[in-house]
């Protein structure tokens, strides 16, 4: 058990890192000293449990117990009602390590990188005060839809996991500025991500992306985008798998494009519902719609006049295309809609 050197009267930070500690007692502290401590560093020790003494530092706001051997966080942590930042990187924690009540803590920054999480604990997904969540270098296979509950989240670091897809609910994190999904197994980006209007930096390097959704262009505040180590297509690849539209779809397309009036007196409710599902063809020169049958179209868009990124969007039919892209393999000057001005997306890390 270690005792630490005398603390200054004004000192609120306690550094107890790299001391070979396997336990710690703060019992000899006076109440006033105990109340003085706002930051505690216990990194690089030999702790296999959180010393109970720590939980009696009632004014503790910052706790870093990284690089120890913790498997469990005790219920007593709930006593740290002022805890704002909790860092426990490189321990042995997983989704069952936290007390049931943990969600009631008002923590703003949680860094649990380098542990053994296979799922994001349910308690974390209820902590609406969370501004920053790091679970890098764990074993997460997916991101649950409940992530959308974290409406204060500004930073989400999930790099170095086993994630294969991004749920559209991530797009509901409207305060998000920094999203890190590098070193995973992601094959596609949901177009809804364009709703992340506050996003400044998106890290997608070392995944399995072959193209990006065209909607990514609407992330106007994005300054950093890393895409290296993805099998992005470099040449136009014609999409050969096109299922021709059904008769029902063809009829529905005519109704919508001719603006034929219809009402519930005319049609059964299932057809009314179907007609309301029409999607507008994204080609601005086409006034058409599609329902189930569409073509995946990849266009190369110049970023900052320098780099050509493959962006994908759906078109209503193989014949639907803007005049300039009739020869997609040509190196002709990009048309207006094909280039992103230099002040947008200034920093794209691809190579």
């Amino acid at each position, binding site marked *: 058990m270690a005792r630490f050197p005398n603390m200054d009267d004004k000192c609120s930070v306690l550094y107890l890192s790299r001391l070979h500690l396997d336990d710690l007692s703060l019992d000899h502290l006076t109440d006033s000293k105990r109340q003085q401590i706002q930051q505690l560093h216990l990194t690089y020790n030999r702790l296999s449990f959180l010393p109970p003494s720590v939980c009696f530092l009632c004014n503790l706001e910052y706790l870093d117990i990284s690089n120890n051997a913790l498997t469990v966080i005790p219920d007593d942590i709930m006593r740290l009602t002022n805890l704002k930042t909790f860092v426990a990187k490189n321990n042995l924690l997983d989704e069952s390590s936290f007390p049931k009540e943990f969600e009631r803590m008002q923590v703003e920054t949680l860094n649990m*990188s380098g542990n053994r999480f296979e799922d994001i604990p349910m308690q974390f997904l209820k902590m609406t005060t969370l501004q920053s969540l790091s679970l890098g270098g764990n074993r997460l296979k997916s991101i649950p839809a409940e992530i959308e509950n974290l409406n204060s989240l500004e930073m989400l670091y999930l*790099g170095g996991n086993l994630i294969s897809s991004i749920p559209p609910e991530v797009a509901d994190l409207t305060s998000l500025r920094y999203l890190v999904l*590098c070193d995973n197994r992601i094959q596609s980006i949901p177009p809804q991500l364009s709703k992340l209007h506050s996003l400044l930096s998106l890290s997608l390097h070392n995944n399995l992306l072959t193209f990006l959704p065209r909607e990514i262009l609407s992330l106007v505040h994005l*300054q950093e985008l890393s895409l*290296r180590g993805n099998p992005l297509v*470099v040449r136009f690849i014609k999409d050969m798998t096109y299922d021709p539209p059904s008769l029902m779809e063809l009829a529905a397309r005519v109704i919508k494009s001719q603006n034929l009036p219809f009402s519930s007196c005319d049609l059964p409710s299932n057809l009314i519902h179907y007609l309301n599902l029409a999607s507008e063809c994204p080609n601005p020169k086409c006034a058409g719609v599609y329902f189930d049958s569409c073509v995946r179209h990849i266009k190369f868009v110049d970023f900052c006049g*320098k*780099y050509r990124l493959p962006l994908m969007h759906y078109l209503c039919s193989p014949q639907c295309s803007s005049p300039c892209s009739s020869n997609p393999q040509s190196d002709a000057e990009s048309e207006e809609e094909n280039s992103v001005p230099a002040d947008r997306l200034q920093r794209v*890390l691809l*190579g």
Partner: protein
Amino acid sequence: MEHTELIKPETLEDLIQTLHKIFESDSVNVEEVQNIMESYESKPHEWMKYAKFDQYRYTRNLVNEGNGKFNLMILCWGEGHGSSIHDHTDSHCFLKLLQGQLKETLFDWPDRKLQGGMQQKSQRVLLENQCAYINDSIGLHRVENVSHTETAVSLHLYSPPFQTCQTFDQRTGHHNTLTLTRALSGLKGFNIGAVL
């Protein structure tokens, strides 16, 4: 020519003074510089004031302008931060790890008939206090902090100092020129990490 005995630099200040002496001459003995830089044992309290991190990308912070003969900079790499593939504009580049680790991937200069993207030549992880060296005749490199839990800090010496460099798209070998910009408070980010 007399070879001056150089004592191991105990502090960062010692290292800077020694480098000034070494670079008084016009010729650079790469091995000598590498040894001197490697022998300085990193002491965080000596360089912490230069280590300004950015959440989204790595930063470059000027330490010393070496009487115009060299630039000494500290680079701060957050988790997952990496650079693009770049050259060194005919200058010597020394890279010493002050904290954490960096992965260096070497590439050959791309040739016209590039098929299937630029291929990496070799890769290694640089550990704390190690000092690597590169110049354009050796090739191009990408430097990355691949850790998801640790930050990294590196000390870079460039001689002569340079204002622009090329960055390369690994998929196609196409390159672009980047310009160093200077802000009022010091050197602002080389957009090396920022482009393809």
